[in-house]
């Protein structure tokens, strides 16, 4: 099956920063991402609201990686969390 080169970026970030991160990604031209819940550690900081960490996964064309990382880094910078990048392939390149 025909696949296309892509990068898989995984950003683990504090939940209160999630909306800032996804807004930055959208600004940087990212067309889609998926947010996964992370099992909590103690910092249950928002019992009515947001809490803990989340993982944001994003598959993008390699040439857009730098724009994405710049945008993500600007948000994560002083915050705890991790940014990892993997080589990947995707089906249906028209969706990216």
């Amino acid at each position, binding site marked *: 099956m025909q696949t296309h080169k892509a990068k898989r970026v995984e950003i683990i970030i504090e939940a209160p*920063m999630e909306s800032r991160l996804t807004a930055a990604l959208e600004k940087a031209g990212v067309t889609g991402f998926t947010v996964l819940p992370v099992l*909590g550690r*103690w910092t249950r900081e928002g*019992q009515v609201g947001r809490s803990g960490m989340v993982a944001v996964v994003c598959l993008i064309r390699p040439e857009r990686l730098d724009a994405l990382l710049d945008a993500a880094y600007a948000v994560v910078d002083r915050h705890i969390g991790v940014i990892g990048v993997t080589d990947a392939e995707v089906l249906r390149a028209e969706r990216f």
Partner: protein
Amino acid sequence: MQDILTLAGANLLTPTILCFALGLFAALARSELTIPEAVAKGMSIYLLFSIGFKGGVAVADHGLDARLVAALVAGLVLSFVIPFVAFGLLKAMTRLSATDAAAVAAHYGSISIVTFVTGSSVVQAAGLVAEGYMVAVAAAMEAPAIISALYLASLGGGRAEKIDADLWREILLNGSIVLLVGSFVIGMVTGEQGMARIEAFIVAPFQGVLCLFLLDMGLVAGRGMRNSKGVLTAGVLAFGLVMPVVGAAFGLAAALLLGLSTGGVALMMVLAGSASYIAVPAAMRVALPDANPSIYLTLSLGVTFPFNLVIGIPAWVAVAQAVGG
């Protein structure tokens, strides 16, 4: 004094406090007992809705008190001012950095709604009736402390984020403020008629839900204590026990100035003496990311919350009765 001890003793042997103790025990003994996050959130939504609605109905019943606005202003002022006091105490008692001290100060200027809920039920059990609008005062006290703290942090050279539009919205429209004020207004609008419809849901099971919720609080606080061994120096710990008393004293002064009822005096002390562990920590993660969450969460949830539950609340109620009676 005798009274205070008796009341404290009676308060200690209620299902609510014992449930908190059970949670603490389970967490410290490393039992895997847990209450699912979603259920804990559900219970906290229930408690907020119930306390807000009941407050609104009380206001609808007794008419709008002239002191409502004054009380709201007093709450705002307390929340703005207490962080400065807390910051000063922290600088005197501990070696925390300006950023950490500012973050902690924000928590003590703001309030803990669960402490307030527990306080309300102790006030009621003592046969007192507080002003219904105290829940509105509680809501008003949630946010201002954050602003004072960011000011303190930047004074101290810390890198506080600017409060942009998003952050303002998150602070002012955080879930518990919206739910508390919203249900307060709904209670006020629908009054006794509304109460009659949903009383069986929000009044009768309240104490029982509070029990399970405090069980969860005990579990969370206990796990926090275990995970943050060594984070708190003796000075920081002492602050966590002294500050609620100082805060309550400010609350007492404000309440007497306002001429609140005995129940109202007690609740104002409870509010001013309590420390946030929901709204403020989330705001600090965004606005003061360099501050260490272990410090402020352990202090607020692991030291001051249990102190208020076991000693503070019954003491403030007794003080209010002594002063008011």
